[in-house]
């Protein structure tokens, strides 16, 4: 049967090469645009190294400290991290971090090119799966004692020291001399929680632990990432965090720390939630849905015209089949299946084209110039999306013509007189 459909479709392609090429190109373009949106969502949501466990992560980036006369919306202090987060029992791992842009120099040679530096703790290396080229992460002992050791990306190592063999070399940032303990493979900026050029223990920089007495030591520069053992733990982690926060606040005099809509999940972030703003999933679906509908509808209208004219040509053939007892369902199925050959070819081309489109549009579809890796592009979800949208487009474009043609009376169809 399938072979028959294929033969029929190929025959049609030969009969009218230009129009069918156009419809295949139209399908390809439509599928490619939709897949680009799917890919963008996938890059923002799905897990890939070093953020392989995104589905189990919770983020706290926004902090609100309210005192009787003042409210501060920003981030939390090291004390809040220690009292409210490091004490949590439910999460598998907890990591606090401060991100900054600073020039990195060599001992005795002051440089001014800026790098992204992430001050963090040992929990960071448990949450994110980094690939080390040389050496390894700084240790718990380094962190406890505030020893200035740093992990650096291979690219930064090459730029600063001239080689990836940089373990043991010294670099200077924020006026402190660090010894490189590990060189990690490049991390795409799309992994926005983990990515940086250099990672160092935050205890190595006393300034980060400075306390602001006017907010009872609650405000600071820290954000937190937590890894749950299981997604189902999210609620109990939130409950435990609330308990810890309440206990912490009770011990304070006037001020209270809170985390507003945080912690957020990766899905919340991918659908537009930020540190201080909770986006509703409904709005996101409505916005994206309407764009996708547009991307499907306009090509579908084009295709309806083409399919309609090609089924009309075969009116007598269909009349004959009906006369010999083919039911409407059989004929509709046949037309859909034949057309699916074209849609399928278009969808496959669209899949290829979507990678090109994503590459060309990465500067405005993703956050700046991010490196794209196979790990973030090839996910089962992408292929499911290809199939789903190809079927949908096929149904939209061939469904109506198929129904239309099967409504014809057998006699009319055989006579080929209906105009």
């Amino acid at each position, binding site marked *: 049967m399938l072979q028959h459909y294929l033969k029929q479709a190929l025959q049609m392609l030969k009969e009218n090469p230009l129009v069918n090429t156009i419809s295949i190109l139209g399908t390809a373009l439509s599928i490619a645009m939709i897949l680009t949106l799917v890919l963008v969502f996938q890059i923002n949501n799905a897990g890939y190294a070093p953020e392989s466990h995104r589905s189990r992560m919770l983020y706290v980036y926004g902090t609100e400290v309210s005192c009787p006369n003042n409210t501060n919306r920003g981030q939390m202090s090291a004390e809040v991290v220690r009292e409210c987060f490091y004490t949590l029992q439910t999460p598998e791992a907890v990591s606090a971090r401060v991100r900054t842009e600073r020039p990195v120099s060599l001992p005795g040679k002051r440089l001014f090119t800026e790098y992204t530096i992430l001050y963090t703790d040992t929990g960071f290396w448990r949450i994110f799966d980094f690939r080390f080229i040389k050496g390894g992460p700084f240790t718990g002992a380094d962190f406890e004692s505030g020893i200035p050791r740093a992990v650096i990306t291979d690219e930064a190592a090459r730029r600063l020291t001239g080689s990836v063999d940089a373990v043991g070399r010294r670099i200077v940032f924020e006026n402190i001399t660090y010894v490189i303990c590990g060189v990690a493979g490049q991390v795409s900026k799309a992994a926005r929680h983990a990515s940086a050029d250099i990672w160092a223990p935050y205890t190595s920089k006393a300034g980060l632990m400075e306390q602001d007495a006017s907010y009872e030591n609650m405000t600071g520069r820290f954000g937190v990432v937590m890894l749950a053992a299981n997604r189902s733990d999210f609620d109990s982690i939130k409950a435990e965090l609330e308990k810890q926060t309440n206990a912490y606040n009770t011990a304070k005099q006037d001020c209270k720390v809170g985390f507003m809509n945080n912690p957020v999940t990766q899905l919340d972030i991918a659908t537009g939630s930020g540190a201080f703003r909770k986006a509703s999933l409904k709005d996101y679906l409505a916005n994206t849905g309407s764009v996708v509908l547009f991307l499907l509808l*306009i090509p579908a209208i084009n295709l309806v015209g083409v399919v309609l004219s090609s089924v009309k040509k075969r009116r007598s053939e269909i009349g004959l089949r009906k006369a010999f007892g083919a039911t409407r369902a059989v004929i509709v199925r046949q037309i859909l299946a034949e057309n699916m050959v074209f849609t399928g070819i278009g969808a496959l081309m669209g899949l290829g084209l979507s990678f090109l489109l994503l590459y060309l549009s990465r500067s405005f*579809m993703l956050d700046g110039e991010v490196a794209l890796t196979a790990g973030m592009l090839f996910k089962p979800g992408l292929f499911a999306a290809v199939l789903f949208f190809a079927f949908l487009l096929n149904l939209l474009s061939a469904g109506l013509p198929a129904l239309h043609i099967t409504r014809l009376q057998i006699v009319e169809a055989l006579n080929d007189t209906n105009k």
Partner: protein
Amino acid sequence: MIKHLLKIIWAQRKTNVWLFAELLIVVCAVWWMTDQLYVDLRTYYSPMGYDISNTWRFHLDLFAPDADGYVPEEAPADGADLVKLQRQIKQHPAVEDVCLSFYSAPYTFGNSWRGIEPVGGDTTAKEQSFQCRFVSPEYFDLFRVTDIRGNAIAPQLEGRHNPVVVSENMALRFFHTGGVAGRQIRDTGQEGESMTIAAVSTPYRDNSYVRSEAFFYQLITPLNIRDFFGGSAVRYAELCVRMKQPFSQEEMNELLHEMGDRLAVNNLHVYSANSIEYYRDIQVSGTVNEQSRKLSLMLFLLVNVLFGITGAFWLRGQSRRSETGLRAALGADKRSIRNGMYLEGLLILFLSLPLTLAFAFNVLYLDVLDTYRLPYSAGRFFITYGASYLLMAGMICAGVWLPVRKAGRMAPAEALHYE
């Protein structure tokens, strides 16, 4: 001719209705997007009120006690170090001017608002809130900000007590007149010090894609500098520098390296520099990305119109081969056959006019377009509406071109053969 074509279009209404529906949707969508892009474009090309070419922001920090290079100080200097640093940098031959500001340099996200009331018997003005920028007197020359008559502002500040400079739109909104130099204002609700308006500056836009808002400058002078930059707050000072000639980031890093000791006073030091253009790009990136997305969608729609028209007219050309042949045989020249096809395509487009106009008037009636940045005018309507139809007409002609070529090439005898 037109009547004849209308008859043909009506006779083929079954296929034309799809084409027509597509054109209808696409015209409306293209007009909607053209209008947004037009407003963006008009806003982009209106005057900014300042000039940031060759200007840079130097980033400041203080050496921490644990850092290499820390100078033990008895008490942090109240702004004196900062003024000294400003003077040292200005002495460099490549530097034209240096100014200080507090969350007020162009393209920083500073957003400080103050309630203002008039001083004395001024009854025309009532208490209102305005954005306030804190800048040193050099700011005006450095960023080429002038008063509304085009004169330099700095000389007008001399001899004034606690001077402020108001923007023209603030003068108009607050005092209902532009000539307000010499009048006095103060913070509401406090019997605070009065401030004297020294000059009225031209409108100022936060970035290329927003309208100018009313605001005023308060001057940072030797008398109040410690209010802004006392103690460790000095590291939040914005030190903006205008260079005598253009520098790339690498050249600037070289220059900073060359400046060496000039970039530090006690513990206050410059650690890096970015051009103001760099901050501009960060601030407008959201709008620019949105524009690119809109343009991609528009391109997608137009390409689909092209595909749709080509496909429909190709099929039509095939089914009407005999008619065309007959006409050619009876002496119609190729040109009139060609023109007939172009006209037919354009006619279908212009038949959509009443419906798209109805859509446009509904949109205007509901006031959902951006009228904040650019008031709606007949000109704006004709330009955007005309541009959308021109674009569509262009697409239709391009789409009809291929089928026309095919029809024109056919010899009359061959075409008649199909009869």
